[in-house]
Every structure is written in structure tokens, then in C-alpha cells.
């Protein structure tokens, strides 16, 4: 599976799997998590800045955008949510939109549930579930053996501030920056999206074709009535359901492709 904020932890995974000391208590697991969380936090800080600019364009204040990021920790999902807010498309549209945009976390959490020891209680599971991002999922799955919840607490403590602070800064600084710079920074998020979806497409013609069809269809529906009168959020949901559904029917994936 692809990673939406993958770049942030390219180095992080390597560091996390090497050099573990032998002690296995909760404190050392927490510190290991913290160590892996800090590079993720730095990546988040940079990337979430462009998300803040998108939030600003949707009319959110720095507090609202920071709060949304603190609670959501999702790039594509938040961007989709800000689109719904900008268009004031309604609460039902928001539910559908967030579900579609974040559906991949369902898969990740399913995989992660296999990594958690059956003795792990409800509270640790609820905390781990708060921050299943692409990167944190990545480092958590890279941990040898079962996942100690304290490792997750460490990663969360280390990484979480970056995303919320970066988003809030994007809103604040976005207002102060020259128009040409804001214009430039507003494509950063899209650059990130492409960095996620394009590399796996190199290995799969089916995936490459699906991405090309998705882009072409999305552009077409933007101009073709009645879809052109819909909110972009509704078009995204329609296209995602129809194209993914058709792809799943025509090209069901082999089992090993489901694992990251």
C-alpha cells in the first residue's frame, strides 16, 4: 500500500529497524517510538504547511485548521474535508467524503490489528487508532514482533505536533506571503499526492491506466453537465466509487499486493 506522507519516513524506517537495544520494557519502547517519531514530525511540518494554505483558501482560521489537523492527522482526508467546507456542501457530504478519502486507513488498521497482541486492552487500542497515518502505520509494521503500545505512544508524541503546527503556520504565513509564493505553495499538496500514486504505477500498467483514466474522467466531469453543476466533493465520491469498483471487478488484486 502506498503512503500518503511516505517521504517523511524514508529514513525513519531504516533507523527504526536497526540499532534496537536489548531492553524490552515500556520505557525503552516509548523512547524508540519517540526517536522514530521526530523525523516524521519534521516531514509533517513541511508538508502540512501546504495543507494550511488549502485550509486558508477554504476560509478556515489558523485555530480551526490546527484543530482539524490535531484531530484528523490525514492529508488527503483533510484536504477533501476543506473542500466540503469551502463549498458548504453539507454534513452528509462531509461524512461520505471523509469516508471515501480515508478508506485506506480501514485497510491499514485491519493489517495493524494483526500486529497487536490479543492481550492488549481497549484503551491502548483506542489510542493507537487515533494516529494511524501512512507513516506511523509504516514504522509500526516495521517493528520486530508484536507492537508494544508504548512504542506507538512514543511515535505519536514525537510526530503529532508537527502536523497541527505546520497546518496552523500554513494558514498564518499563507496570509503574509506574496501572492506568487502562495500560488506556488498551493501545488505542494498535489505534488505530494503524485509522489504517492505515481511510483506504484510504474510497476503496474493496470494502476497506471486507472490513474490516467481517473484524471481524464475527473477533468471531463468538471465540464460535462449535469456533473459540472455538482460540488467537486460529490464528483470525487462518484468517480472514486465507480472507478475503484470497476477496477476491483475487472482487475481483482492478488493477495500479496494488499500488504504494504
Amino acid at each position, binding site marked *: 500500500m502506498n503512503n500518503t506522507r511516505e517521504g517523511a519516513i524514508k529514513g525513519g524506517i531504516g533507523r527504526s529497524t536497526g540499532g534496537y537495544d536489548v531492553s524490552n520494557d515500556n520505557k525503552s519502547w516509548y523512547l524508540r517510538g519517540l526517536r522514530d517519531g521526530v523525523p516524521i514530525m519534521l516531514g509533517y511540518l513541511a508538508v502540512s504547511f501546504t495543507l494550511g494554505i488549502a485550509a486558508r483558501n477554504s476560509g478556515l482560521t489558523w485555530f480551526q485548521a490546527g484543530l482539524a489537523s490535531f484531530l484528523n492527522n490525514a492529508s488527503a482526508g483533510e484536504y477533501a474535508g476543506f473542500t466540503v467546507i469551502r463549498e458548504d456542501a453539507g454534513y452528509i457530504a462531509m461524512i461520505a467524503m471523509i469516508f471515501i478519502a480515508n478508506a485506506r486507513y480501514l485497510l491499514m488498521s485491519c493489517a495493524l490489528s494483526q500486529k497487536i497482541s490479543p492481550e492488549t486492552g481497549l484503551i491502548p487500542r483506542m489510542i493507537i487508532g487515533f494516529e494511524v497515518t501512512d507513516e506511523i502505520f509504516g514504522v509500526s509494521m516495521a517493528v520486530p514482533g508484536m507492537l508494544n503500545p508504548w512504542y506507538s505512544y512514543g511515535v505519536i508524541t514525537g510526530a503529532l505536533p508537527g502536523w497541527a503546527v505546520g497546518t496552523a503556520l500554513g494558514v498564518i504565513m499563507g496570509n503574509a506571503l506574496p501572492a506568487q509564493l502562495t500560488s506556488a505553495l498551493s501545488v505542494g499538496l498535489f505534488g505530494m499526492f503524485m509522489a504517492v500514486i505515481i511510483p506504484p504505477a510504474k510497476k503496474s500498467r493496470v494502476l497506471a491506466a486507472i490513474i490516467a483514466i481517473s484524471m481524464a474522467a475527473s477533468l471531463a466531469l468538471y465540464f460535462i453537465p449535469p456533473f459540472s453543476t455538482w460540488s467537486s466533493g460529490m464528483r470525487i465520491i462518484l468517480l472514486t466509487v465507480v472507478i*475503484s469498483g470497476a477496477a476491483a471487478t475487472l482487475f481483482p488484486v492478488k493477495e500479496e499486493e494488499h500488504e504494504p
Partner: protein
Amino acid sequence: MSRNIYVYIFIMFAVTYLIRELPLTLIRKPIKSRWIRSFLYYVPYVTLAVMTVPDILFATSSVWSGLLALIAGVALAWSGHSLFTVAVLSCAVVFVSEFFL
């Protein structure tokens, strides 16, 4: 804005959290249906692709700088650059090209 922005934010949080949390607490076994697994596999690619186009064309001051950013982003990602590099260089393409547009 007729609806409350904080209600929107709370819905974003609630749906996102439930998506992440429910499998961890309720589903102890992997999803068996091959179709659902395949569907979930394709979803992120399609969603991110349709969120990028056409929005990237209208995000910048000019459609042309947006188009250049799209082309640059795809090319850079294809040639294996990191997420951070692709994001930053896409921005640079827009910034530089808008001196000439």
C-alpha cells in the same frame, strides 16, 4: 457559510477516527472478500488522482503554471524522487514559470 465550521471539523474527526479505530477493536481477522479488498486497494489511487485533476489547474494564478506543475510532479514522481522533493520542486516550477506567464 450557513453551516457551522466546528460541526464540520467534528464530523471529519469522528469519521476518520472510527475508520481507524473500529478495525483495531472489532475486526480481529482480515477482510475475506476479495472484491472489497481490491476495492479498498484501488480507492487511494483513484481518490488522489481525481483530487489532483482538475484542482491543480485552478490552484495557481494561471492554468498554465498549474499544468506545468502537474507534468513536473508526475515526471519527478515517476523518476523516483522522494515525496518531499516532488512537493517542493512542483512548487518551484510554479514559482519560476509565473515570472513568464
